């Protein structure tokens, strides 16, 4: 049986990075929430679990789209902008990702219609007895493993089996973020396009091709989920090895085969697990665990696409901090092109953003890695191993930088949430009596005092993670120190620059 990128990535990890998958994610204690909290296990084991958590989000999403189309064109008076770009964003980056991995994917409405059409089922599983497999394709739909699917069910092109599409798509989307964050109709166009695209791709390609390779949100979730304090894993890989059913991957009458193409026994990172919980249902040995674990437990980047995602996210945090949190009006005019009509400025901003994210920041980083390797002297680790190893510290650092950036958005503009809760369309309603709450920033003068510790923690995590990578790659501590020193300086200078932006 052929599986997708994720399983292939896991099995090939040894070629690009040192440790085996089990070493990769085994560090630190684990507490299995499914064993600790039986009601949680009962809930996620229900066939209707995913429908029950996605459907409310879908209804909210549809409400947001309606508000975006028919409601106030003023962003801070419309629920789609306030709820998505202030509340959802903050919760996503500051709470969901660090504490619950890709739990957003569990409830995300984007693949709802596509997966429904692909499975022709919202709750039940379409499975056959393995003994009856032959000739089933002629009946209706297509058999993949032991599940029956509808649509074309093509394999996703191997050449696109990475997160490069997500990298470029996200960067393109973020180039227009000044419009996206302030115009409800632009949010409607983008979010509407994404749900339509997800539906179409589900009809053409098998499983969650949209989520795995196209969704721009999925790209950065996959990266930062590595830091998360939650993971889903096989409780005992020996049980998996002995298992003849492999229902987690092939599906069975209890659950669909993994829509992300993951074989849980080989799952060593959070990156490409969407926490749909089908494996909890389909495992015939009750061998899936939903673990609590230490922050930053997944430590291996497995390709340049992932490293570049880290560079792009850092560049965007920097750009947004300058444009949206900075005082410079001309930069806001450049980004706000449809109103300011500064096309030249917008083009310059675009070039700077793309060059910074794809060339300049990776270039500075690559230079530091190159200097480090020269300082370290002869060693066995390849250039790619060292580059990817030292790029990993950008993951915990990037996450904390994004939390620091997002904090003032919530604290300063959080009162808009109360306003639009009562008046979601900006039509003058007052459903809960909060429509006329005055704009009230919450402790805005203390924001820098919160951002500094966040950035310090991010730097400490990054340096620790880099040092661990260095000792793993170079073995001898003196070599590791020389190799990592230039990268450590780059990481520190990056954080100092954020200090300058936020406090200086």
């Amino acid at each position, binding site marked *: 049986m052929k599986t997708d990128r994720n399983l292939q990535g896991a099995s090939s990890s040894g070629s690009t990075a040192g440790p085996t998958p089990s070493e990769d994610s085994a560090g630190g204690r684990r507490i299995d929430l499914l064993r600790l909290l039986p009601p949680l296990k009962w809930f996620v084991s229900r066939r209707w679990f995913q429908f029950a958590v996605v459907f409310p989000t879908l209804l909210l999403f549809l409400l947001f789209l309606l508000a975006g189309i028919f409601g106030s064109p003023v962003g801070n008076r419309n629920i789609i902008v306030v709820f998505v770009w202030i509340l959802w964003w903050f919760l996503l980056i500051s709470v969901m990702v660090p504490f619950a991995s890709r739990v957003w994917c569990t409830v995300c409405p984007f693949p709802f219609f596509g997966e429904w059409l692909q499975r022709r089922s919202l709750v039940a599983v379409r499975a056959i007895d393995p003994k009856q497999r032959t000739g089933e394709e002629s009946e209706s739909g297509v058999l993949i493993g032991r599940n029956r699917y509808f649509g074309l069910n093509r394999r996703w092109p191997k050449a696109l089996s990475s997160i490069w599409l997500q990298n470029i798509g996200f960067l393109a989307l973020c180039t227009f973020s000044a419009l996206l964050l*302030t115009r409800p109709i632009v949010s409607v166009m983008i979010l509407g396009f994404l749900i339509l695209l997800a539906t179409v791709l589900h009809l053409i390609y098998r499983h969650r091709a949209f989520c795995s390779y196209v969704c721009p949100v999925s790209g950065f979730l996959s990266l930062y989920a590595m830091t998360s304090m939650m993971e889903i894993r096989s409780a005992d890989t020996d049980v998996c090895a002995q298992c003849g059913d492999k229902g987690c991957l092939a599906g069975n009458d209890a659950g669909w085969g993994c829509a992300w193409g993951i074989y849980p026994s080989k799952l060593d990172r959070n990156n490409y697990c969407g926490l749909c919980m089908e494996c909890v249902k389909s495992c015939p040995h009750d061998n899936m665990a939903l673990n609590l674990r230490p922050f930053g437990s997944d430590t291996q980047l497995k390709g340049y696409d992932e490293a570049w995602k880290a560079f792009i996210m850092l560049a965007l945090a920097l750009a947004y901090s300058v444009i949206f949190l900075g005082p410079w*009006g001309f930069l*806001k005019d450049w980004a706000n092109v449809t109103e300011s009509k500064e096309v030249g400025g917008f083009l310059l901003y675009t070039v700077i953003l793309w060059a910074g994210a794809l060339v300049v920041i990776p270039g500075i980083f690559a230079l530091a890695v190159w200097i480090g390797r020269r300082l370290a002297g002869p060693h066995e680790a390849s250039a790619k191993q060292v580059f990817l190893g030292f790029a990993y510290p950008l993951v915990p650092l990037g996450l904390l930088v994004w939390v620091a950036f997002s904090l003032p958005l919530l604290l300063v503009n959080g009162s808009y949430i109360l306003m639009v809760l009562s008046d979601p369309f900006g039509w003058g309603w007052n459903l809960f009596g909060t429509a006329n709450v005055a704009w009230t920033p919450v402790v805005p003068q203390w924001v820098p005092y919160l951002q500094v510790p966040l950035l310090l923690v991010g730097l400490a995590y990054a340096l620790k993670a880099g040092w661990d990578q260095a000792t793993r790659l170079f073995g001898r501590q003196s070599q590791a120190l020389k190799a990592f020193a230039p990268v450590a300086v780059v990481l520190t200078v990056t954080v100092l620059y954020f200090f300058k932006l936020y406090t*200086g």
Partner: protein
Amino acid sequence: MMPQNRAHQVLDTVIVLATVLLGGVVGYVAAPKPPAPQERQITIRARQYAYEPEVLRVNKGDTLRLRFISEDVVHGFFLEGYDLDVKIFPLEPEFEVSRPSKPGSGERVQEVAITVEREGKFRYRCSHTCGYMHPFMQGEMIVAPNRLFPTSIGMGLGVLFGGLIVAARKRKPA
């Protein structure tokens, strides 16, 4: 008794925290002393979606006599940490000043004076919806000695040097 590994981890953490603290103290002390307070007359011009001046650099103890004018639409001037909110009318020298802590305290004036008693970096933000980019319309008032900045720089360098000490310590065989 604590296992040796655990003891090393605790010691490493203590070393890093100590260097962070030391770096912070050095940064705090190294902040340049501001000159004697003075009175400044400042006219702030607001437009979609920026203020002129974008950055106000003042010293602790200064008295600022502020005037406002809007070049296009109604704007606000909410100064973080100073209980000051101003409604600025297009092309009018008169503006409405209020204290957010005292709702309904609005008063139309042509100048408002504040004494900057708190050091640091404070944003002034537009408080009246003025267009698409309204939530991001802001300027900065930097009050010297802005000790948080050198303190944070010192602490950041403290993390780096603490990490180096810990790494160098591990080079020695146990």
